[in-house]
C-alpha cells in the first residue's frame, strides 16, 4: 500500500479518485502518481502508450502588453512566435498562447523555482492568469500520438505539420483544450491542458481512444530520465 494518498493534502488533482492502485509521491504540496501498482509488479517500463496526470505540478500564467518583454528581461527562453513553446534544460516550459499570453510550467524533475519567478514577473502591463486550479494537465506518451489524436481531434497533429515546439488550441473529444508537442525524457509527448470541470471525462475519453494502441494510465516515473 502506498503511504502517501491524495486525501492527505488539501490540494489534489481534479481526477485523483481515478488513480486507484497507484503509488504517490509528494510534489508541491499534493500527491503525484509515481506509478501504478500492476505495472510495477510486472517490472516493465510501462504500456506502449501512457497517459499521465500532472495536474498538481506548479504552473502560472501571465498576459498583457508587457508580458513578453518581462520574460526576456528575466532571461527566460521566450517563444518567438504565437502558439509555440520553449523548454529549458532546467525543466521550465514556456507556452505562448496567442500574442500576449504566456504560461510557465515546471515539468517533472525540474529544478526551477516557479514561485520566485512568479513574484519577479510583476509590473504594470502584466496581468496574472490562473491556469493551475482551472486546468488539468495530462501528458500522452508513446509511439502513436498522432494516430490516437486523429480519433478525437480535427487538427493534423502528425510530425510534418505539428513539430516539437508547436502547440495548438482546439477542441479535442469535443472539449476545448491546448495540445503541446515537446520532449520529456528524450521522447516526444503531447501535453494536453483542458478545463478542470471536464478533466474526468477527458481522461476516460483519451484512455478509450488509446485502447487500441495498448494505452494505459502511466505514472510520472515514465517521464523522467
Amino acid at each position, binding site marked *: 500500500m502506498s503511504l502517501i494518498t491524495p486525501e492527505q493534502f488539501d490540494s489534489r488533482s481534479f481526477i485523483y479518485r481515478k488513480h486507484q492502485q497507484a503509488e504517490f509521491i509528494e510534489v508541491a504540496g499534493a500527491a503525484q502518481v509515481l506509478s501504478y501498482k500492476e505495472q510495477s509488479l510486472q517490472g516493465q517500463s510501462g504500456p506502449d502508450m501512457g497517459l499521465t496526470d500532472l495536474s498538481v505540478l506548479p504552473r502560472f500564467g501571465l498576459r498583457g502588453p508587457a508580458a513578453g518583454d518581462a520574460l526576456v528581461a528575466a532571461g527566460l527562453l521566450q517563444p518567438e512566435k*504565437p*502558439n509555440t513553446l520553449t523548454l529549458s534544460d532546467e525543466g521550465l516550459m514556456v507556452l505562448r*498562447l*496567442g*500574442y500576449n499570453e504566456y504560461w510557465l510550467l515546471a515539468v517533472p524533475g525540474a529544478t526551477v523555482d516557479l514561485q520566485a519567478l512568479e513574484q519577479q514577473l510583476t509590473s504594470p502591463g502584466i496581468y496574472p492568469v490562473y491556469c493551475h486550479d482551472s486546468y488539468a494537465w495530462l501528458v500522452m506518451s508513446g509511439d502513436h500520438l498522432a494516430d490516437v489524436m486523429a480519433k478525437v481531434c*480535427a*487538427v493534423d497533429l502528425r510530425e510534418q505539420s505539428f513539430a516539437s515546439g508547436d502547440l*495548438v*488550441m*482546439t*477542441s479535442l473529444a469535443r472539449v*476545448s*483544450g*491546448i495540445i503541446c508537442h515537446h520532449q520529456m525524457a528524450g521522447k516526444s509527448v503531447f501535453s494536453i491542458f483542458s478545463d478542470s470541470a471536464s478533466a474526468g471525462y477527458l481522461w476516460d475519453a483519451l484512455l478509450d481512444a488509446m485502447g487500441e494502441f495498448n494505452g494505459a494510465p502511466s505514472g510520472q516515473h515514465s517521464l523522467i530520465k
Partner: protein
Amino acid sequence: MKIINCPLNGPRNSSEFVHGGEVRQMPDPNNCTDKEWADYVFYSDNQIGVVTEWWLHAPSGYWFIAERHTGSDEILRTYDPSEIYTSRVEFKAKVEPSASEEVTV
C-alpha cells in the same frame, strides 16, 4: 464541416467558433440619442450582401473580424482586429453639471 480560417490559429472547423455580431461604428454614448444607442446595441441591418462581423475562436479566446456574404455564407476574408482598431476605446462617464461642482479633483 465548414472551415473558418482563423488569423491566429489557422483553418479550423466552424464548430470551434462563436458569432459575435456585426462590426459597427459606436456612436458617442454621451451625446447620442437613446434611439441611436438602442439601434447600435440591439439592431442589425440584416441585408443580403457582404457583412463585417466579429467572430470568436473559443478554444483560444481570440476575437477576430470576418467578412462574410450573408447570401452564400462564404467567408471572404478574416483578419486581426488591429487592422481597424489601432487604439484602446476609452469610455468616459458623462459628468452631470450638478455633480461636477462637487468633484474637487
